[in-house]
């Protein structure tokens, strides 16, 4: 190795270290932004309350009606459906959180201050996404755990346990899903540069999703690929397993892969808009 290439590699190492320091600073700033507005605590607590609270109620409801089910229904009964169903509503405040995280930059005009302080668009966007992702991940883990145990308490004798077959995968899938749908919402808000538009699109879509949008005959061919529907398999929300009406054309992890694709597309779209448009 000659001197020139040695110094070049030292320089690129130094540059990389500088990038990491900068990213850490921006993520810390975004973290501060997140925790210094009231809407954050409100949306995140609501996510937890809806998930766990409805989880218990759904569990208790299903348990109470179990004896009235047909023998066939009893046979295909999946406690995980009753466990995670509440998350289809519990995700809504988390999505609102993701949208507001990016959208209020535009609605309040803070984006100008942000970009004047962090003029490198990629650095700003990366720091924001990282802080949002970490917040969403922590919230998701807590919410999924609370929801799981609340639902099992509600289900009583029909409850399942963490060690049962398929449960660990569903729990991990639920944590990933909640985190990713929140990041997806951030990307959509970055593309639309605001809060109202993204909320007007995402909330009805996700609400309809909870009502079985992915199972509508005819529409299913397309709707099963929507970002919330692709995670229904891993979370056991697509319907009783083995029933062709509710089955998906893909398996659990393929579904999560498709969700990952959605998230990457939304984030990339948001980044392009941020880079191209004047602030």
């Amino acid at each position: 190795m000659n001197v020139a290439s040695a110094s070049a590699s030292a320089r690129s190492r130094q540059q990389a270290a500088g990038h990491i320091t900068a990213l850490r600073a921006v993520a810390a700033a975004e973290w501060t932004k997140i925790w210094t507005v009231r809407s954050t605590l409100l949306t995140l607590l609501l996510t937890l309350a809806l998930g766990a609270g409805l989880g218990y109620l759904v569990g208790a409801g299903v348990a109470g009606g179990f004896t009235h089910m047909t023998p066939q229904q009893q046979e295909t009964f999946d406690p995980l459906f009753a466990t995670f169903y509440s998350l289809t509503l519990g995700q809504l405040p988390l999505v609102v959180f993701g949208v507001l995280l990016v959208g209020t930059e535009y609605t309040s005009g803070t984006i100008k201050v942000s970009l004047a302080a962090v003029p490198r668009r990629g650095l700003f966007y990366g720091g924001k996404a990282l802080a949002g992702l970490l917040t969403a991940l922590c919230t998701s883990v807590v919410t999924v755990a609370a929801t799981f145990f609340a639902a099992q308490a509600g289900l009583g004798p029909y409850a399942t346990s963490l060690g049962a077959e398929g449960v660990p995968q569903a729990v991990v899938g639920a944590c990933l899903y909640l985190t990713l749908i929140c990041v997806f919402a951030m990307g959509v808000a970055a593309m639309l540069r605001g809060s109202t538009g993204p909320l007007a699109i995402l909330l009805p879509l996700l609400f309809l999703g909870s009502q079985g949008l992915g199972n509508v005959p005819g529409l299913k061919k397309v709707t099963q690929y929507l970002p919330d529907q692709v995670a229904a398999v891993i979370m056991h929300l697509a319907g009783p397993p083995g029933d062709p009406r509710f089955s998906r054309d893909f398996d659990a992890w393929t579904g999560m892969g498709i969700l990952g694709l959605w998230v990457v597309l939304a984030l990339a779209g948001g980044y392009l808009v941020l880079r191209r448009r004047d602030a």
Partner: protein
Amino acid sequence: MTAVDDLSFTVGPGHVTGFLGPNGAGKSTTMRMMLGLDHPTAGRVLIDGEPYRSLSEPLRRVGAMLEASAVHGGRSAYNHLLWLARTNRIPGTRVREVLETVGLEDVAGKHVRSFSLGMTQRLGIAAALLGDPPVLLLDEPVNGLDPEGVLWIRNLLKGLAAEGRVVFVSSHLMSEMALTAERLVVIGRGRLLADTTVRRFVEDNSRSHVRIRTPEPERMRDVLTAAGIRVEQAVDGALEAHETEAARLGELAAANGLTVHEVSTQRASLEEAFMRLTGGDVEYRARGDAEHLAGGHVEHRAGGGRR
């Protein structure tokens, strides 16, 4: 529509430079381009030879206040400055310092949405000072301030310049800049009209005349005209002599035995000089013309200056 066209100037340290132009002249757009918030179609703005967008920790190089109202209302003043400090790894202790500098330490914990226009403006200035930068860019900093606040900011800006900083301040008020700035950059319709000192600007642009009041205006007029001096009658009956000096008129009056009640040099006000300079360039007259209303988004961009 072109908001800013072929605009080129250099701003130096040690004094306040006023950036003047009528509303809609392109002041805000220029400042936004300096911060990399708007893309110029051609050309570039360099800060110490680097484009703003490639600066790391730019708050330590350039402190800017574009729209003071661009703050999340649900965040406290302290927290607003805290996150901003963190982006550029500025220590949190600096937040308290700048809050004291702008006199907001007592309301540091209050939500910004409860702030008056003047307080928001002070917060914007605190944000600009956060990184202790050698260059300050402030867009209309006196807007919305009460007389006390205007005086405060005037002294603050002069003090910051005296410390050897570049202080670049936009305004549409010539009279304010005359009191604060030493140098002036004047634009109209996005073009450079003047890049000079306040003193030179005044001398070049304010036509001065000498006012004479006398009980014998007819004779005085004849005497002055005979001496080759252009004279006009003012509305109140006094005479206005152009392109001459008070001493010469006094001498002429004495030599001709004329009684004089007043001989005084009158300078057209700065505001008048400014109006004359930019007169042809006022973009938004009472009757907006269709050509300029057409380019909706760009006009909006230039709109910051109209507030």
